[in-house]
């Protein structure tokens, strides 16, 4: 794999995104370094999921720049600041380096677990079928679901589906993994099994960006925590500092509401 060690894995520069008249991202800039786990928290509608989707170009940014290992994603900005959209093939190639796991799992319901995991490596990266099968088995061992390899997604619990979705994203051997509120749609009892897999990935050194409402998990697993509101970074730093001593009134209010909602 072609790695560029001195470069941030993700570099976001002055990112803007609008939905019609609504400004969702208002000039966000940050880096994610190799092996770093960045957790993003914020109230509903703050732009955290939109920001994450921009990192995989599932949402197209209206301004600013995203670089994945130094390579621009989606648009190239020319010297005169005009933006040129990349070709579909180029965007697809960059996307395959960035694994994404969604809130609603989004497994392919017409294919069994094995095919869900091997489909993209075979069709996108042209991996040989037996090699893709072996990797699928290894990944299912890792997420603890090898016995479900021939099941269809409809036969799995939410937690199991989400673990398969993680294995599916990992099968593309991405350089960075994005997690978009991956436990929000799960029964509280099933949250733990998904978080364990994510924790394991973090310990293995995977670069991760996690949008989450699981404060304890964000505290325990991330190296850096970012609080965003109205499409802006309000505060960022070490998780323990941010969560224990929030500097901004907005984060204090958010954490206060969050804590009282569990009393």
């Amino acid at each position, binding site marked *: 794999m072609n790695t560029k060690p001195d470069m941030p894995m993700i570099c976001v520069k002055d990112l803007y995104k609008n939905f019609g008249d609504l400004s969702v991202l208002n000039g966000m800039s940050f880096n994610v370094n190799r092996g770093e786990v960045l957790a993003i928290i914020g109230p509903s509608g703050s732009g955290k999921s939109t920001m994450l989707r921009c990192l995989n170009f599932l949402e197209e940014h209206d301004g600013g720049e995203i670089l994945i290992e130094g390579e621009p994603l989606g648009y190239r900005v020319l010297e005169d600041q005009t933006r040129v959209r990349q070709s579909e093939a180029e965007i697809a*190639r960059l*996307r395959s380096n960035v694994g994404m796991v969604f809130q609603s799992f989004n497994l*392919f319901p017409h294919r069994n677990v094995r095919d869900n995991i091997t489909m993209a490596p075979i069709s996108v990266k042209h991996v040989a079928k037996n090699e893709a099968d072996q990797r699928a088995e290894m990944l299912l061992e890792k997420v603890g679901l090898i016995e479900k390899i021939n099941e269809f997604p*409809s036969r799995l619990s939410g937690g199991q589906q989400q673990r398969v979705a993680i294995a599916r994203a990992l099968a593309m051997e991405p350089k960075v993994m994005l997690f978009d509120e991956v436990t929000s749609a799960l029964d509280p009892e099933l949250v733990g099994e998904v978080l364990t897999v994510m924790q394991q990935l973090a310990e293995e050194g995977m670069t991760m960006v996690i949008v989450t409402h699981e404060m304890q998990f964000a505290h325990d697993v991330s190296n850096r925590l970012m609080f965003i509101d109205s499409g802006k970074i309000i505060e960022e730093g070490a998780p323990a500092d941010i969560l224990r001593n929030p500097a901004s009134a907005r984060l204090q209010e958010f954490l206060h509401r969050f804590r009282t909602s569990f009393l």
Partner: protein
Amino acid sequence: MFDVFLSNLPYLLKGAVQTIWLALAGVGVGTALGLFLGIISAMSGGLIAGSITVYVFTVRGIPVLVWMFLSYYMLPQLGVVIGDSYAVIGALILYTGAFVTEIARGAVLSIPKQQIDAAKGLGMQKYGMLRLVILPQAITMSVPPLLNNSVMMVKATAYVSVVGVWELTYAAREVVERTLAAFQIFLGVMLIYFLICYPLSIFARRLERRYSYEH
């Protein structure tokens, strides 16, 4: 009681073969055309999708019999001489295609956006997404309405007798005029039409089962 029907059965079966041929050509090609146009319409936009919509709305809003009259009488006037059967098959193709276009377009558009996001997120491009994610799910959804449409169009082949193209219904009318046994003959013709349409239903059920993923 059915001796008149039985003695004329070979003649009626010849008509049935002609009906099957009209159905295979008209409905088969029309369905293929509709599937193609429906997928293109759902995946593209602008002028292409707009032109396909104009085709669907124009053809669907006019009875198939009128299209048959049009192609039967108008084509020779325009100097296109292709034979009566081909003229009505053209009308059947046009009409089937319009309905199937909407079935296919609807099935493709009904695939949840999250499925597309997942495929894109894995680095798939349009063609791969279409082949591996969208079409397999769309096919499952479109089998029942496609069958419905095919059965309707097989029965619509009976209209071609009005413009003088020989097939099962036309043959039955000839036999009735000769024998005056309308009840027997048309009861028998009902049975033949049913026997043509029933295998279609069986075939569709098999297809549904094959592509079903709710195990």
